[in-house]
């Protein structure tokens, strides 16, 4: 059986000379949630954009369900659901119409598209906003609408670039809950995030990138055990009281990628 996503020696060198991704390999089996972590500039977004065909590869190839994104971009993009980092919802359409208009690009007939639009708006808790103006939606609502849009053609592989950045705790938990329920249905999920609790709570498998290369790969639990062992971490609360807690993913992340700030 082919992998949901397979990256084979992928390289991205921009015209500026910057090598954002430098020979990365990974395989994502179907039905798991796979997270890419890394500080800013590590190559997460470049990797994810290459995987949905937005950025052409300098070298290597990415296979989605066994088919090359470089060789068959149209066919492969039809298999993927994409929720990008920036808001690119179409403000010219109201949510329900926008979903239906988007569905048309995947060859979904209009009655079916409208039915799915209603279903998805319900799924992300936006049924009441079906006919609101997209410009008037809050940041969290826009994010959820973008999430719904990524699902309109029932993709088997879902790509989420920082799906919860800027969301309040309620909206973030809603997205997590939806990701879990999609995973249960057998959808493969590739996501990037800056939130270690999100990575630890959602992802079966993690890839830690830095400077365009793979630093580590494994399940959250295995990674922590490998690098941090059972050594408790000493922390201080604001009153200066010190206490010990077990190591978590954030401790591991900082140990692997260092503490200095990135571009």
């Amino acid at each position, binding site marked *: 059986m082919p992998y949901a996503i397979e990256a084979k020696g992928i390289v991205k060198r921009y015209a500026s000379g910057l090598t954002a991704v430098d020979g990365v390999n990974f395989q994502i089996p179907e039905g798991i949630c796979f997270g890419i972590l890394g500080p800013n500039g590590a190559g997460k977004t470049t990797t994810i954009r290459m995987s949905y065909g937005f950025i052409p590869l300098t070298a290597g190839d990415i296979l989605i369900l066994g088919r090359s994104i470089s060789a068959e971009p149209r066919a492969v*993009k*039809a298999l993927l659901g994409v929720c990008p980092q920036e808001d690119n919802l179409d403000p010219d*359409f109201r949510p329900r119409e926008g979903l239906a208009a988007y569905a048309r690009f995947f060859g979904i007939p209009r009655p079916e598209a409208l039915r799915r639009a209603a279903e998805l708006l319900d799924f992300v808790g936006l049924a009441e906003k079906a006919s609101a103006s997209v410009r008037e939606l809050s940041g969290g609502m826009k994010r959820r609408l973008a999430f719904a849009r990524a699902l309109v053609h029932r993709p088997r592989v879902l790509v989420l670039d920082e799906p919860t950045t800027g969301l309040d705790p309620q909206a973030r938990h809603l997205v997590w809950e939806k990701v879990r329920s999609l995973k249960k249905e057998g959808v493969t999920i590739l996501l990037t995030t800056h939130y270690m609790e999100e990575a630890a709570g959602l992802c079966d498998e993690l890839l830690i990138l830095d400077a365009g290369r793979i630093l580590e790969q494994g399940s959250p639990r295995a990674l922590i055990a490998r690098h941090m062992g059972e050594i408790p971490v000493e922390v201080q609360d604001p009153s200066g009281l010190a206490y010990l807690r077990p190591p978590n993913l954030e401790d591991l992340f900082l140990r692997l990628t260092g503490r200095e700030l990135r571009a």
Partner: protein
Amino acid sequence: MSPRLAFLVWRRNLEVYLRTWFVNFLPPFLEPLLYIAGFGLGVGSLVGNVPVGGGLEIPYARFIAPGMVAVAVMQQAFFECAYGSFIRMYYQKTFDALLATPCTLEDVAAGEIAWGATKALVSAAIMLPILAAFGLIAMPGSLWMLPAALLAGWAFAAGAFCLAAVVPNIDTFNLPMFLLIMPMFALGETFFPLPESGWMHAVGPWLPLTPLSRLCRSASLGTLAPLHALGVLLLYSLAALLLSMLGTRWMRRRLIP
């Protein structure tokens, strides 16, 4: 390029356009009426008849009627694929969203430019019956203006799309607006016949709008030779094809790293 996906991009724009159809149909409907009133009757009473060659003289209102069609074609196509495409590409990120569907950039560009050409055609199609009703253009000869509107509109739309691909920000459109569109509007044999000599005589015929306004005028007088018309249409088609390819390439360079 996939014709089916390019058509869907075109249809997306059509759907948005029809959503506010009343506001969109109003300008091409009102504009000729205002021009006829202001220029045709107002200025026309001062100007009298205008020579159009071959010893023929026509009232000023009849002179500017086809000029108005040519100007509308240029402006509709230009505004749609300069400002309209830029807003969708830069502010709304509509192109980015479409690129996550099976569409490629070639499909998006083709759909956008085809839509600009369509808007040019629509404005000509709305103006034609109004001008004919006022007796300012001859029928059926004036029907030549429709294919001309589509193909010249295509060329202007593609040229505007090239600009949308390269301008750093939306204010930069002021430059082509004042250096290209306004001179064509004024000197493209739209509102007065080009003089027999002098700098206007030298520059005017080379403006990309001039062949269109001349074609429209001959069509409106019923004196257009079909072979000549086909030649002009072929010229605009070639320009449209070339500029479409160029605009697509530049837009790819801008959006795809």
